């Protein structure tokens, strides 16, 4: 814990960094993202289990992109997203410093994308037990039950787009929902349009979702929408051996193909 404060203080004092993107304690003890520019504020920074938010998305924010010497305190989700974002050309090696943690909690600096890749390779990539169980529960349902489940969930969606805003992979400056010729996604939040939105969002994350679950964590209505992108991520791995956030030079699962790809569903 103190080693993060110590390390960032040194970075800011030495001038090696002018901005640290990390976590601080927020309302009711929850962790939240924080931006520290002064050495005396380094004491605000924390890193513990509560810091599970994926903050990689800040790296390509215009205001932050322009900062020359910045460092990000990256949890495992954030690291994977950094790899994926790099593979999608949204962030570039050397533009920021990455502070991560070993399994023992030791703070380390990952100096290149290659080092991040290596570190990510040591991390667990599957779903957590709770999500696994929910996935299994849903998959065990009949088709009608599944439809009922999701219809209920989608009916609650208010289209605030917190899921989109909080996902590091949703970086398009003009999202498809903002296109009105044609209007791909209806603006009002009826169940039909909500369903279309969530299906599209999941499809757009095919081979890109690193299964951090940030979308669901951000949803004010607690919709389990992360399961949709997980489904797509699991299928990408199962059928096409593609795991997002593991390789900077990987091609996207839907941008590539093999002639021998699975096709027993095609007549």
């Amino acid at each position: 814990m103190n080693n993060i404060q110590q390390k960032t203080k040194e970075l800011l004092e030495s001038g090696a960094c002018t901005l640290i993107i990390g976590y601080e304690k927020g309302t009711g003890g929850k962790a939240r993202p924080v931006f520290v520019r002064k050495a005396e504020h380094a004491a605000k920074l924390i890193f513990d289990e509560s810091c599970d938010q994926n903050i990689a998305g800040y790296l390509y924010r215009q205001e932050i992109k322009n900062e020359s010497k910045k460092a990000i305190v990256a949890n495992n989700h954030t690291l994977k997203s950094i790899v994926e974002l790099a593979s999608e050309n949204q962030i570039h090696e050397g533009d920021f410093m990455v502070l991560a943690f070993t399994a023992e909690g030791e703070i380390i600096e990952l100096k290149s994308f290659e080092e991040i890749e290596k570190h990510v390779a040591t991390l667990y990539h599957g779903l957590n037990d709770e999500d696994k169980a929910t996935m299994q529960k849903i998959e065990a349902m009949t088709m009608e039950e599944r439809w009922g489940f999701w219809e209920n969930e989608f009916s609650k969606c208010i289209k605030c787009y917190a899921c989109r805003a909080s996902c590091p992979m949703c970086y398009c400056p003009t999202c498809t929902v903002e296109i009105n010729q044609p209007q791909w996604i209806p603006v009002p939040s009826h169940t039909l349009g909500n369903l279309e939105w969530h299906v599209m969002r999941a499809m757009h994350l095919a081979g890109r979702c690193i299964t951090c679950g940030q979308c669901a964590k951000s949803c004010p209505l607690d919709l389990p929408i992360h399961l949709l992108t997980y489904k797509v991520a699991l299928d990408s791995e199962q059928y096409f051996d593609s795991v997002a956030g593991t390789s900077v030079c990987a091609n996207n699962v839907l941008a590539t193909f093999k002639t021998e790809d699975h096709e027993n569903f095609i007549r």
Partner: protein
Amino acid sequence: METNNNNSFEPKVVAFVCNWCTYAGADLTGTSRIKYAPNVKIIRFPCTGRIDYMLLMKAFANGADGIIVSGCHPNDCHYTSGNFHARRRWMIFRNLCDFIGMDMNRVVFSWVSAAEGAKWAEIVNTTVDTIRQLGPATSFQKLIKNSVFEEVGNE
């Protein structure tokens, strides 16, 4: 699901096909005068690679009861690999739709070459039969109905 009115139910099926194989195959069905059910209407695309899954969603959102997506057999794509890309996309899309409880029996994927006029007729007829059995796509129809805000008041 009520299916006792099957006799009067005429499924609405949209076919998304590529120009070079299946569209030409359907032309051959015509020149061969092979008869099939009139429920299926075709939209022409340059390649299966062009077929956006969101259009499939839109078809259901506009009241389709079923969908056929068809293109060139593997290795026969006019553009070499559009159908391979499409196949991957379908695979992921299909599983996702199944996961949210959409009835994937309503979506038929097929390869129909320019020489397979008879296969096209067979695909259309079996698809229409299947969907006649399944009945109207009531799950989507309910959503379409609810998307028109007739009921005033708090949901």
